[in-house]
């Protein structure tokens, strides 16, 4: 029992990172219907940007902003100049997966080529420890939780109260209708990628703050739990993703505490496969022709 409560504490931190990353991923998926498997590597790249910032002696807050900005810009460009052209060319869903994996390999190995196969850390002041309710957090981790909450709040306000937010929700719910109503314009899609890209970059930086040392594959290793969060929460449903992040974050840390640390990722794997197979939310159609027949 004594190991479980701190595990829940770790789980909350992991859930915070997963929430930021997962909401970004699910927004991208919901608006453009692309499973962007390069997402984890963009996180890593943002982490390297943050690394460069802190190595130059600048504050970690600046590094967070730089990471988010990088993620935002890079994601918009990636969608504009790689993904969308392929989609317009008629590449089907599986072809797009090959495209995103190719991009993932290119990003990951470019980072490897540039920075080498070393482990890196952000230059940060050494954090203090705080103990509440039997769980131990460093101030950095509390910061991560705070950032996550702030980001989720910002997204909530965006989606509920702004025109852009409503456009994004409409596009995620019914892309064809949104397109024919002129809602899903290129501008809306660009902004959706910019926002989700910012979340991606932010998640990358807080991820490496939490794991203290990172390498070129760190982000990619986090990808499967992120996809699991997006799928469990329902594609394109950010609030579902937030909840799913809590579930998967805490469950995987508990599994690590109860069984062994190696099986931490397996929890996310199994949840992802189970959800995709059992109830992927409207993907497994009951009708043979692939659409609901109403007449």
């Amino acid at each position, binding site marked *: 029992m004594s190991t479980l409560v701190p595990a829940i504490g770790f789980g909350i931190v992991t859930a915070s990172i997963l929430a930021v990353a997962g909401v970004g991923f699910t927004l991208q998926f919901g608006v453009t219907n692309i499973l962007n498997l390069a997402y984890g590597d963009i996180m890593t790249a943002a982490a390297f940007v943050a690394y460069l910032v802190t190595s130059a002696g600048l504050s970690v807050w600046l590094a967070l902003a730089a990471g988010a900005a990088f993620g935002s810009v890079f994601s918009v460009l990636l969608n504009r100049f790689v993904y969308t052209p392929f989609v317009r060319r008629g590449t089907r869903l599986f072809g797009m997966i090959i495209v995103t994996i190719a991009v993932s390999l290119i990003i990951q190995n470019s980072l490897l080529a540039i920075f080498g196969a070393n482990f890196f850390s952000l230059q940060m002041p050494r954090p203090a420890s705080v103990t509440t309710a039997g769980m131990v957090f460093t101030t950095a981790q509390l910061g991560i939780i705070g950032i996550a909450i702030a980001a989720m709040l910002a997204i909530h306000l965006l989606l509920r109260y702004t025109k852009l937010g409503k456009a994004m929700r409409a596009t995620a719910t019914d892309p064809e209708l949104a397109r024919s109503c002129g809602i899903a314009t290129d501008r809306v899609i660009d902004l959706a990628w910019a926002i989700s890209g910012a979340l991606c970059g932010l998640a990358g930086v807080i991820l490496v703050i939490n794991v203290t040392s990172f390498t070129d594959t760190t982000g990619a290793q986090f990808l499967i739990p992120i996809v699991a969060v997006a799928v469990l929460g329902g594609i394109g449903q950010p609030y579902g993703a937030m909840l799913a992040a809590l579930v998967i974050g805490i469950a995987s840390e508990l599994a690590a505490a109860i069984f062994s640390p190696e099986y931490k990722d397996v929890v996310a794997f199994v949840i992802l496969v189970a959800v995709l197979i059992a109830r992927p939310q409207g993907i497994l159609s*009951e009708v*043979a*022709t692939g659409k*609901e*027949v*109403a*007449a």
Partner: protein
Amino acid sequence: MSETGALLTVTDLHRQFGGVHAVNGASFHVPPGRITGLIGPNGAGKSTALNVIAGALKPTAGKISYRDQDITGLPSYKVARRGIIRTFQISSEFAKLTVLENLLVAAPGQRGEALWQAALGKRYWRPQERAMVQRARQLLARFDMSAKEDEYAGNLSGGQKRLLELMRGLMADPALLLLDEPMAGVNPSLARRIERHLLDLSGAGLTMLMIEHELAVVERLCDPVIVMAQGRVISQGTMAEVRADREVLDAYLIG
């Protein structure tokens, strides 16, 4: 309610999606050797009923019997193997196969389709395939599509795809052909040609159940006619009888 002589009998069929009762207690029978029309306003449940009969959907309740055998709930490939072949409202060609290959796939009882048969090599399955190719070519000639034999099915025009859909269904040697709006989206002259083909087939003894929207077409082709509205059958009989039915008029005005 089993009618002697009926090829297909549907009894109290139900199919719901969530809260929507697409088919809500439909009962009808399809007599052999005729073109039976299935009509009704939008949302009447016609396509759903067809899909359930064909095995593409499972009914939530009810019974379907074919030649006095219960086929309720069978998966679509087993329904097809008994001789009930359906066409799709949206053309479902095998896009990366040629037109001729599309037809060959449909032929039943092919040698060389099982792994051990394939292993026996060309000498085992080639002769039968040659005969099937002949048959397919006759079919193509009949529908004036011989020139398109080696064309990829995905490259055909919309109307040609509808014809391919019909030809493929015929190649499968059906005892009962289920047609889901066979002339949807087809230009009028082609539609009239398809009508003539269907009449010829009916004359040769093929049983058909056809969903159709254009009542003029139904009048020319179908006898009997089954009218559905709101998931159930509200009338059946000849076109003239059904036309005079009060309930039918109400349904079409409302639906």
